[in-house]
């Protein structure tokens, strides 16, 4: 399942403007660098990269979240980002 | 047959078993290797040692080359040890101057590297050659066979076996746990593929059992203890009290009518709980014996002691009803046993995604068997629990079969009985019928034709494992219905099919208490829990315990024709033993070398069969070879090496151990 998805992402085997792989990539970058994901920034980056018009559709939800104080604008990160890198590659099937 | 004089002269025979062995073991190299071993006068390899020409080789070489020991490297001794020993005997040599090496099951079939398999085969052959030099001539003992037979389980298998043996003039004890014989078959309406009525073919056999002079029928009874060995089994049968004396009851059933319960209130197991019965009841009208049972769990007299006991009044001067009846133990001696304990159906609750027990209109196949049955709870009317007639019925195959999460095996009968039910339900209701199957399996006389017939009857067949049965409605068309969600693997998309009745084709599995029964009779179970036959092809009704045979679904799922055939086979095997009058026993018993016995009595406590006794006069132990079963535990325990076991002498095994290791 994931191997298929990975392969599709790697070889760009998906319709243009499909946000799913973009989300995956952005998420990957963010977590790889900062150790945590920040929903707001993640969605923002995804939208900008795939289809900015999406943002319009998101205004209402965004407002709801702000209204209910559920939108966290802080860009989270962990202290020990060094420890995030995966171990020295070992041959794995 | 006298011990040949002169030095040990061993002949070694390597079997190719076609390519079964030759493909992985270098048989030529092996034969050449064996030829150089001490005491080996000749070593041959041959395509099929077990074949007649193969055995002739041995016989001739014994004659022409004066062999006095023989080693055959081929398959498992469990398969052909007897064959080759006989060959020695015919060749004029004591059959126990023989040792067999298993280079098929335990070498060629389990190793990939030719080099390694061959090396291992060499070790084993070398060990056998060293061992066989120490073999002694032995005589087989004979045990007389008690002609009576015990048959456990009164389903169609037990019934058929019992009648076969009884007609051959043998006395049969038929023991059934339920209050009537008939088993699962008695619950069926019609049988596939011929659609002849189950009752019409079963009930005559049931009453034949009842009236047969050679059959002692004990229903409501269980075997609780078994001792002895082939030809001489001693069994204890516990007869639960049915509170009605079979010898006095005339089967008028007036007591049931007279019961103070005007409305039946107790779930009727025979009808799968689809109807009610009274505390005093008879499982079904054609039950054998025609004798009611009182169920103390629900009878007021048992609960409060304040019942008017109108049943007893109704019975009048027959006095057949005895509410103080107690369980009774019967001791019987039989020579052979046939196990026909049958199966249980898969509990559909173990597959919660099919909604059995949650949605009232999800039924098991056995429940529907009762619904379509003319003598069933609805007199053959197929109606839902709320009384409606179903308009669309979904039959889900492989519930508890071919499923990693429940039972992995195919239950063999579900496809066909599903077809049968599809036909019957359509016939009774005219409803749309959907079969959901993984594969249609219709191997059998007239089975495929029956499948074709159903197709022509416009029954729908959807190929795909059902994901779930739910009452989740997506739109009004589904409101109030059960929805079957399934991937139609032929059409290639997921479908939602609204029906108002779901039938779960539950699979067959071993009885929950099969393990206890297995221990009781000292036999084995296969990995899925069904009783293990001696050989899947060549000894399908035998077990590894001599004199105990299998019939019917206790050995594995099968339909009625196969069950009856197997029951006949089991009866024939029993007859063969009985009419031979005796069995030859393995001479692998223990005996005490009184010179060496120091009288420490260690061995006495070792023997579970009390075969080792202490003789006070000479202050030494002695083995009763009739009682000895030849396990050798006492031999291993004896501190002074005074007890020895034929065929497993210390020096023989030491030689074998050194043999396997001596090229280390």
């Amino acid at each position, binding site marked *: 399942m994931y191997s298929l998805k990975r392969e599709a992402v790697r070889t760009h085997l998906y319709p243009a403007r499909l946000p799913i792989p973009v989300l*995956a990539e952005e998420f990957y970058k963010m977590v790889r660098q900062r150790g*945590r994901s920040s929903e707001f920034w993640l969605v923002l980056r995804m939208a900008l990269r795939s289809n900015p018009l999406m943002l319009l559709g998101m205004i209402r939800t965004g407002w709801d979240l702000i209204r209910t104080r559920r939108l966290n604008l802080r860009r989270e990160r962990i202290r020990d980002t060094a420890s995030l890198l995966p171990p020295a590659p070992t041959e794995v099937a | 047959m006298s011990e040949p004089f002169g030095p040990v002269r061993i002949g070694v025979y390597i079997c190719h078993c076609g390519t079964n062995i030759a493909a992985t073991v270098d048989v030529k190299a092996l034969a050449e290797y064996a030829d150089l071993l001490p005491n080996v006068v000749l070593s041959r390899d041959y395509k099929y040692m077990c074949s007649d020409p193969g055995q002739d080789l041995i016989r001739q070489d014994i004659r022409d080359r004066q062999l006095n020991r023989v080693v055959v490297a081929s398959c498992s001794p469990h398969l052909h040890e007897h064959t080759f020993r006989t060959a020695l005997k015919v060749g004029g040599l004591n059959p126990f101057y023989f040792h067999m090496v298993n280079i098929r099951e335990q070498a060629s079939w389990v190793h990939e590297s030719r080099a390694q398999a061959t090396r291992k085969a060499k070790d084993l052959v070398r060990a056998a050659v060293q061992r066989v030099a120490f073999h002694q001539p032995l005589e087989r003992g004979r045990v007389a066979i008690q002609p009576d037979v015990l048959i456990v389980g009164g389903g169609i298998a037990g019934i058929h076996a019992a009648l076969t043996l009884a007609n051959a003039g043998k006395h049969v004890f038929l023991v059934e746990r339920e209050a009537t014989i008939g088993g699962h078959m008695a619950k069926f309406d019609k049988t596939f593929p011929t659609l002849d009525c189950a009752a019409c073919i079963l009930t005559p056999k049931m009453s034949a059992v009842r009236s047969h002079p050679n059959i002692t029928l004990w229903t409501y009874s269980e075997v609780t203890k078994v001792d002895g060995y082939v030809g001489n089994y001693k069994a204890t049968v516990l007869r639960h009290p049915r509170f009605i004396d079979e010898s006095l009851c005339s089967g008028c059933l007036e007591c049931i009518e007279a019961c103070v319960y005007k409305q039946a209130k107790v779930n009727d197991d025979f009808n799968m709980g689809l109807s009610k019965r009274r505390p005093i009841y008879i499982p079904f009208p054609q039950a054998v014996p025609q004798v009611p049972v009182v169920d103390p769990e629900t009878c007021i007299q048992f609960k409060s002691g304040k019942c008017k006991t109108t049943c007893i009044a109704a019975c009048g001067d027959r006095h057949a009803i005895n509410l103080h009846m107690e369980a009774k133990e019967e001791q019987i001696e039989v020579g052979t046993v046939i196990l026909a304990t049958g199966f249980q159906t898969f509990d559909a609750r173990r597959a919660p995604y099919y909604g059995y027990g949650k949605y009232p209109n999800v039924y098991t196949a056995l429940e529907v068997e009762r619904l379509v049955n003319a003598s069933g709870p609805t007199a053959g009317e197929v109606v839902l629990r709320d009384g409606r007639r179903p308009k669309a019925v979904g039959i889900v195959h492989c519930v508890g079969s071919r499923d990693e999460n429940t039972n992995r095996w195919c239950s063999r009968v579900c496809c066909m009985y599903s077809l049968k039910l599809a036909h019957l339900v359509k016939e009774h209701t005219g409803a749309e019928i959907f079969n959901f199957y993984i594969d249609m399996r219709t191997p059998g006389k007239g089975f495929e034709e029956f499948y074709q017939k159903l197709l022509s009857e416009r029954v729908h067949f959807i190929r795909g494992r059902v994901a779930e049965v739910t009452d989740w409605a997506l739109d009004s068309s589904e409101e109030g219905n059960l929805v079957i969600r399934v991937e139609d693997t032929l059409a290639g998309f997921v479908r939602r099919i609204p029906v108002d009745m779901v039938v779960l084709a539950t699979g067959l599995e071993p009885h929950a208490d099969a393990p206890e029964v297995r221990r009781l009779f000292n036999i084995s179970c296969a990995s899925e829990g069904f009783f293990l036959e001696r050989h899947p092809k060549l000894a399908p009704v035998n077990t590894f315990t001599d004199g105990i045979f299998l019939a019917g679904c206790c050995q594995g799922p099968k339909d009625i024709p196969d069950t009856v055939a197997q029951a006949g086979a089991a009866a024939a095997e029993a007859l063969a033993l009985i009419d031979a009058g005796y069995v030859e026993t393995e001479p692998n018993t223990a005996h005490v070398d009184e010179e060496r016995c120091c009288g420490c009595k260690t061995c006495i406590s070792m023997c579970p069969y009390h075969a080792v006794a202490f003789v006070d006069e000479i202050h030494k132990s002695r083995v009763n070879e009739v009682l000895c079963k030849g396990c050798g535990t006492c031999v291993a325990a004896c501190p002074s090496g005074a007890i020895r076991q034929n065929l497993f002498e210390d020096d023989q095994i030491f030689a074998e151990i050194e043999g396997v290791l001596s090229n280390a």
Partner: protein
Amino acid sequence: MSSAYGYFPGCSLKGTGIAYEESLLALFHLLDLPLAELDDWNCCGATSYMSIDERSAFSLSARNLTLAQKAGHRDLMAPCSACYLALRKTQDYLQRYPKLAAGNGALAAIRAVRVRHPLEIIYSDVGLDRIRKKVARQWHGGRVACYYGCQMVRPYGEVDCDTDPTRMDELLRAAGVSTVEYPLKTKCCGGSLTGTTHEVGVRLNYILLKEAARKGAEAIVTVCPLCQYNLDAYQAEIRRSSKDPVDLPILYFTQILAWVLGAEIESLGLTRAIAGRKRIAQWFKPAEREAYV
């Protein structure tokens, strides 16, 4: 060995799912179950990370498990279903393929730490009886549908039965809340689809909401921040597109339990709900004279 449960919040509980964290802490406090948040925990990797680089995805969770072990926790609690699965899956895979763990020395941690979900912790470690005994408020709210989602129950089936989970129902009933039979309890909420392929995601949630209502539920109770968000955030949109007047409160099981066990209303993050606010206001107002049971 610390007796406290290691607490792995996960990113959502610091954002859209903050009400879950608030009510969870309140509930564990009421049940005197000590919690210790994992220091410097990192994102579990969820499913998106998995779909770029599986091995480093494992190393992410491995890091968290190692932190937990270093902190001496026997249990690591992950309230978010996605976090729970990511951690549990890593544990499982690294045990089955030790090669994966080579280098980051996580294997020891993998074996030492149990990954658990609060639902199962409360069900097994506290138990229905103690919940019954501890009930401090009568539930004046309506009947609810318990929604388990997929990642928590499948594939491991350790939190609850993988095909027919019932523990949330049992807990709520023990707390005097009546629940409805909800056939879609383990269907998917669409996860991130509501953000990526919006229509697909919303349709899934529409089906979930509609069926809950059809079964007579007046609210849906969840165990996962993403499930809660998806069901909660798009109801207005659904009302517009379909003619169905759905407006169901989407609660966390921790909110109801904590409330019934007597938590302060402020501690439950109830004001953070988007849908069904009216009903929530009615259900969660301390009755004039508290009915103690």
